[in-house]
Every structure is written in C-alpha cells, then in structure tokens.
C-alpha cells in the first residue's frame, strides 16, 4: 500500500460528480473522519462558488463569448472549457456547445469513444469537439485541480483514489475510465461498482450496526436509479470463519433510464397541454419547464394533500409578468406519468418491451426503450434465479420463478420521492408474495445523492484492512468467438463457437488459466475476434467451448483486436498464440496474446472504436 494520507472516493456520474474523502491518519475501526469536498466551480461568468456536486456538464465557449478573465478559476486564469454549474446554465441557451451525458457515450458500443464526437449535433468545423474519453479526463482533472487547490500539501495523484463505475459497465468502458484516471495522474487507483459503493455507504452510516440488520442467507437487492442510468446488483450475505461476509453475486444490464428521463417525460406532458392551448415553447423554455416540473413533482410526491402545483415558464425577455406562461402539473399527471409510466405494477413474469421509441429518446444514445424500471427489474431477477446456488448457507437455487431478494437498498436522487421508493418496494414484495416468499426489508439508506462518493472513500479505507469488504470479482464470464472448422457453405456464415477465457467472479489482481486453443495471428496486421460476455453462466471454466447458447445467456460485446508488432519477425508470417485473461489490480479486464514459444506477450485491445471500425 502507498503512504497516502487520504482515501478519496470519486463518483463520476452521468449528471453529477462528487468527491468524498477519509483522513486515514485520523480514522480507526468504526471511527472514521470523513468529509465531502465542496467543488469550486464557475456558477456564472466571473463567479466561483464551492458546491457539493459538480454537474457533469462541459461547455466549449466561443473565444469572444465571455469577457477576459470571466472564466478564471482559482487554479487557472484562462481555461478553454467550462465545467459544472455554469456549463449547465449557459449550455441551456447554447446547446450546440454543451457536452452532457458523456458517461453514457463512454459505454456506447456504436461509436468511437476516442473520437471527437461531442457535442453530437455541433457543426464540425466551427466547434472543437471532444471525445467521450476526453470529457471524462476533463471532469477528473477539474476534481484533481480543485483538490490540489484546497489541499496544497497532499497532491491527489498520490492519494488512494477510488473511482466508481456502473456495475453494468462493459470491460471497454471500465478500461477507458481507468485510463482517464491514470491520464490525470492518479497513481493508486481502483475502480468500484456504484451499487457496491452505495452499500458500503450504508454499512458506514450504520456505524457497526449493520451486522444486526442483516443475517447469513440474506440477498440484498441494490436499485440505483441515477440521473441517467439504472444500475442493479444483488449482494448476498455469507459467513466465513464466523464473520459476516458480503458477496456480490449478480449485476444487471446497462439501462439508460434515469431521473432525467422522468423529468423530461413530465415536461412533455405539460408541453402537450400548452401546445393544445396554442402556446409554443422554444428549447430554452422546455428546459425551464423541465426544471419547473421537477420542483412541482417534488412537492406533489412529498405531500399527498396537494392536488396541483402551478408551473410557470418564465419569459426569456425582461418582461417577466407579461411574457411568462402559466400552467400547472396535477397529482393525476404525475401519478400517470411517473408512477404508472416508470414504476408500473407488473407481475414478476413481465419483461421490457421493445416498443417504438417514445418522446424520451434523444438522437444518438441507446436509451432504454421501455421506461418501466419495474419491468427491467423483473427481467433481471428472472434471469438471475441461479445467482446464489453456489454460495454456502443458501439453498439449491431459488424455488420460485425469480431470485428472491430479502432486503432492498435504494440509491439515487429519484428515490428522494418516498412515493416512488414505496411503489418500487411494494412491487417487489407483491412478486415475493405471489411466490409465497416473505417480504423484503428496506435498508434505510443514507444521502441518496452522495452515498456513492462516500461509499467509495470508505472502500478506500476498508481496503487497508479497516472493515468488511464486498467480494465477488467480475460479474461476467468472457468468451472469444472461434470459427468452427467445417467446410464453407456458400451463403452461410460459418457457425461460431465461444471459448471461455475468463470465468465468472475473477478477483482483482488474478490471472486466468490459459486455454489450450491456439489462434493464428498475422504479424503486423490487426486481427479481430468476436467477444462475448455472460452474466448468468457461472460454472464455465477457462477452455470451455460453447457450441450454442440462447440469446439471453451470452451478450455479444465489441470485437477485440490483436496486433503483433513486426519486430524480429517478418510481416505476414502467421504465429500461433494463446489468449490469457487477467483482472488488473485497478479492476479492469486485460487480455493478452502469448506465442507458443518464448515469454513474450502482447496486449489485446478491447475495441472502443465503434462497431463499424475505421
């Protein structure tokens, strides 16, 4: 371990970033000195404020747009981009220069994540665009500079840094995140899944009490609905040598569905009413309306005696009274749009529908087509019936039609509305009741906005031996596609087999065995392989060759690519290699090609260049 003074947790969120830290020298056992860094950022031209959250928005200003010195930060007198609160507010008026949801683009399989593609609609030759990777670097660099400004004697680069990623991030997106963190200089870096961070935060908040609130055999379902994504994880409570232990047994698919979709959906309902009255709104006003609807929603969801809340769309001009548009949001509209739209009461057998994309879709990102969080959850639990089979203390698999959670932990700003948390909890308990299982307890959460950053800092502390750790390793097994040796049939693609390279649950810092199968690599030429992951095939070992599989079992990821350098070999020569998987200490998947002879090995790249290639 390093001689770091702080364990720092960074929540690099789709809509907000936060940084929390534990002073290692002043912490021991359950006594932990933890704090949140308020992030200095521009809130308006020429104004710098310290806010608890750094909105994940990045604005690319025109050189003449702001007066000289108006973009000054405490550590930079002439930044070329604007981040945070001011980026969000200025970007609402000039969206072509605004980068938002960069994190969703970072795991978008259809695009080149290192190519300058953001903002997506910007005129290419007029605005210098950024890549999703570069945007992540910028957010992290801002947090680093802010930290170093506030802690001049404890450079962030030399602290223990934990950066959180969605549990559903694929290996390539994890690798990009780790690379971004290394690019800003973090020397002691680990990645942590966000739902795990939320659970760590809960453990930390309970100050030791958590051992009395869970027992061996519990399955904790973490439902994290953030601003942009829904992230699901199952964590089982096991026992080893008399002590309680936590094991993450399953994670859900990447679902681009979050609180922002909900506010946008409400805004569209209200906009529809205004359109019917013959009033049209420009994009800035829709933004203002979304903002107004969020407030109205919070009031309506918090107080069930209120039937309607007025929503006012302010005018853009100085005539506030004469130019504003007044409307209202009713309890019925919120119930219909949010509660029934996003959290409908569905049976456990329900599955997300792939119906045509509704008003929620924006151009570009692969947003979830079914807005019902409950249906996505039903699919997840239905698929993971075998998740706890191999754990000691658990029965031989679930007897019901889905995996039965015994406790639920909510995370994410969406659940600030008790009504939505209650509905979600009720739906889960209804499913359990229909299977004859006892209801799931609610683990009372900590701060829904900051739990992930706090849990990540706490994790940095427990990694040094300070408390319970969640085990689990990789939440998927990984396979490379192998063309089977059979005579080519014209018009028919040769059938493909999947060779297991990395088994389920590989821990950080371990290497998998090397499967015996060899691949011919052409020296000096990139060779591509199809690549697959499975979140349900827990028993496959390295070298297992799958002939066929159901579409639910294996998910095709982006191709991987190996290039053997031409050094000491003649280009065009075919070299037989074997592939080895390992999980780095940071928590990323690493694939290497190793020739039969010699000890050389080359990194096999996880493709982040988009499905179409160059």
């Amino acid at each position: 371990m390093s001689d770091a003074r702080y364990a720092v947790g960074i929540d690099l969120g789709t809509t907000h970033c936060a940084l929390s830290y534990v002073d290692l020298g002043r912490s021991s056992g359950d006594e932990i000195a933890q704090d949140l860094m308020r992030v200095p950022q521009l809130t308006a031209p020429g104004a710098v404020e310290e806010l608890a959250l750094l909105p994940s928005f990045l604005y690319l200003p025109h050189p003449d747009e702001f007066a000289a010195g108006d973009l000054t930060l405490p550590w930079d007198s002439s930044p070329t981009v604007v981040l945070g609160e001011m980026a969000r507010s200025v970007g609402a008026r000039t969206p072509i220069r605004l980068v938002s949801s960069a994190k969703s683009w970072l795991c978008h399989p259809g695009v080149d994540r290192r190519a300058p593609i953001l903002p997506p609609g910007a005129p290419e030759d007029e605005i210098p665009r950024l890549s999703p990777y570069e945007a992540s670097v910028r957010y992290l660099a801002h947090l680093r500079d802010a930290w170093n400004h506030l802690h001049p004697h404890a450079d962030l680069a030399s602290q223990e840094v934990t950066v959180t990623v969605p549990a559903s991030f694929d290996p390539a997106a994890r690798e990009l995140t780790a690379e971004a963190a290394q690019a800003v200089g973090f020397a002691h870096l680990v990645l942590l899944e966000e739902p795990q961070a939320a659970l760590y935060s809960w453990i930390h908040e309970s100050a030791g009490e958590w051992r009395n609130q869970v027992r061996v055999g519990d399955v904790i379902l973490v439902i994290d609905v953030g601003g942009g994504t829904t992230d699901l994880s199952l964590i089982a409570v096991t026992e080893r040598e008399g002590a309680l232990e936590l094991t993450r047994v399953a994670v859900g698919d990447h679902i681009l569905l979050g609180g922002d979709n909900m506010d946008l959906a409400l805004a569209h309902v209200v906009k529809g009413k205004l359109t019917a009255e013959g009033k049209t709104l420009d994009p800035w006003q829709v933004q203002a309306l979304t903002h107004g609807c969020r407030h109205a929603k919070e009031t309506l969801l918090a107080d069930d005696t209120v039937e309607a809340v007025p929503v006012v769309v302010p005018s853009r001009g100085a005539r506030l009274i004469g130019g504003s548009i007044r409307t209202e949001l009713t309890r019925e509209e919120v119930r219909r749009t949010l509660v029934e739209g996003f959290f409908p009461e569905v049976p456990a057998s329900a599955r997300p529908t792939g119906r045509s994309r509704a008003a929620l879709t924006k151009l570009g990102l692969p947003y979830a087509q079914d807005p019902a969080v409950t249906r996505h959850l039903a699919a997840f639990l239905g698929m993971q019936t075998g998740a706890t089979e191999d754990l000691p203390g658990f029965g031989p698999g679930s007897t019901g039609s889905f995996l039965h959670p015994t406790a639920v932990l909510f995370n994410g700003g969406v659940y600030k509305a008790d009504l939505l948390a209650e509905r979600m909890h009720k739906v889960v308990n209804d499913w359990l009741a229909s299977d004859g299982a006892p209801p799931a307890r609610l683990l009372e959460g900590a701060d829904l906005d900051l739990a992930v950053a706090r849990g990540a800092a706490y994790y940095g502390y427990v990694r040094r031996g300070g408390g319970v750790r969640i085990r689990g390793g990789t939440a998927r097994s990984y396979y490379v596609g192998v063309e089977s040796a059979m005579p080519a049939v014209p018009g028919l693609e040769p059938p493909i087999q999947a060779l297991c390279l990395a088994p389920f649950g590989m821990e950080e810092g371990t290497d998998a065995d090397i499967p015996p199968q060899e691949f011919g690599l052409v020296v000096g030429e990139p060779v591509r392989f199809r690549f697959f992951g499975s979140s349900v095939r827990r028993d496959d070992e390295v070298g297992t060759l799958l002939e066929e599989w159901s579409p639910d079992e294996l998910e095709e990821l982006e191709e991987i690519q190996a290039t053997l350098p031409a050094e000491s070999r003649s280009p065009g020569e075919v070299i037989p290699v074997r592939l080895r998987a390992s999980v780095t200490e940071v928590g990323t998947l690493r694939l290497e090609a190793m020739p039969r002879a010699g000890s050389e090995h080359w990194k096999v790249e996880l493709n982040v260049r988009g499905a179409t290639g160059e």
Partner: protein
Amino acid sequence: MAESPPSLFARLLIALDLFRRVLIDPQFAAAASRLRAAWSTAQPGAPGPERPSLREAEPNAALQLLGLLQRDGRFIDFLEEEVTAYSDSEVGAAARVVHEGCRKALQQHFTIESVRPEPEGERVTLGQGFDASAVRPTGKVVGEPPFSGRLTHKGWRVTNVKLPKVAAGHDLSILAPAEVEL
C-alpha cells in the same frame, strides 16, 4: 487601560519638559492646546471624543447580490416591470418564479436564523444590557431594564455569508447581460 498616575517628581519633570517644548515648538503648542480642550470635555478615562463616524457602504457586494437575485429569481425583471396593467393572478404567477429563485439564492448564500427563538406573540424579557442592535423595544419604552413585552417580530440574523468569489476585472455593474440569439 488604567495606568497608575506618575509620582510627584516625575510630574515635575514632565511639566518642565512641556513648558520648554511649548515655548520653542509652535506645532507642539498647537497640539497641546487641542489636547487641553479635548481633555476638559472628555469623560474621565476616555481616550478622547468620538468623531461621528459613517462609512461608505461597499457597492460591490450589493451589486453581486442583485446579480444573484436576478440570475436565480428574475428579481430586477420583476421590480422593473409595471404591474398595474396585470391581474393579480398574472402577477402571482410571475411571483412564483421570483419567490422560488430568490429563495434559492438566499438560502444558498446566506445562513439566516431568527434573532429570538420564541414564537411571535409570546412574552419575552429584555435584561439589563440587552443588545439594542439585535432587539428593538417599541411602544411604551420608559423606565429601566429589565423590560417585559410581547414579541411582535422574531427578527432575522445572518450567521454565515457565502458569496461567490469574483474574478478580478469582472464587471459587477452588469446585473444581467443583454442576450442576443444568433
């Protein structure tokens, strides 16, 4: 600070020295004369009379606050608009924007609490030497404290101010820039 008075011998030395310097130094004589005049009107022990002291309020913080209220709550737009032509419901609708935004700005930049914790309407007692800037007795203000009366307004006190830092050279007199959509 109360010093012990000088001894008779020391006083004699001071008197001789002052006599000499008043004679040879006209400036010193003028200063001594001013001290003598001030001394006769001053309270015993006080260093001298307090000059009336009023300072100019610094406009920058005020401009900054106006800018914040305009940015978050359209404060200037609201006050600069002629309201007579509009109905109460129209003014009310705009007031919501102003209320919500200005409230947010206020809560974000100031920590405000009431001066007196008691609910308004309750009887309170003001003891000897109460802070007259924080509590103002009204009505039948006669006699000596302790005063007893009814709390008519609980008062507001700012306990913490957290205004944004301003870039050097930023023009605070622009409360809201004109916007031109291209």
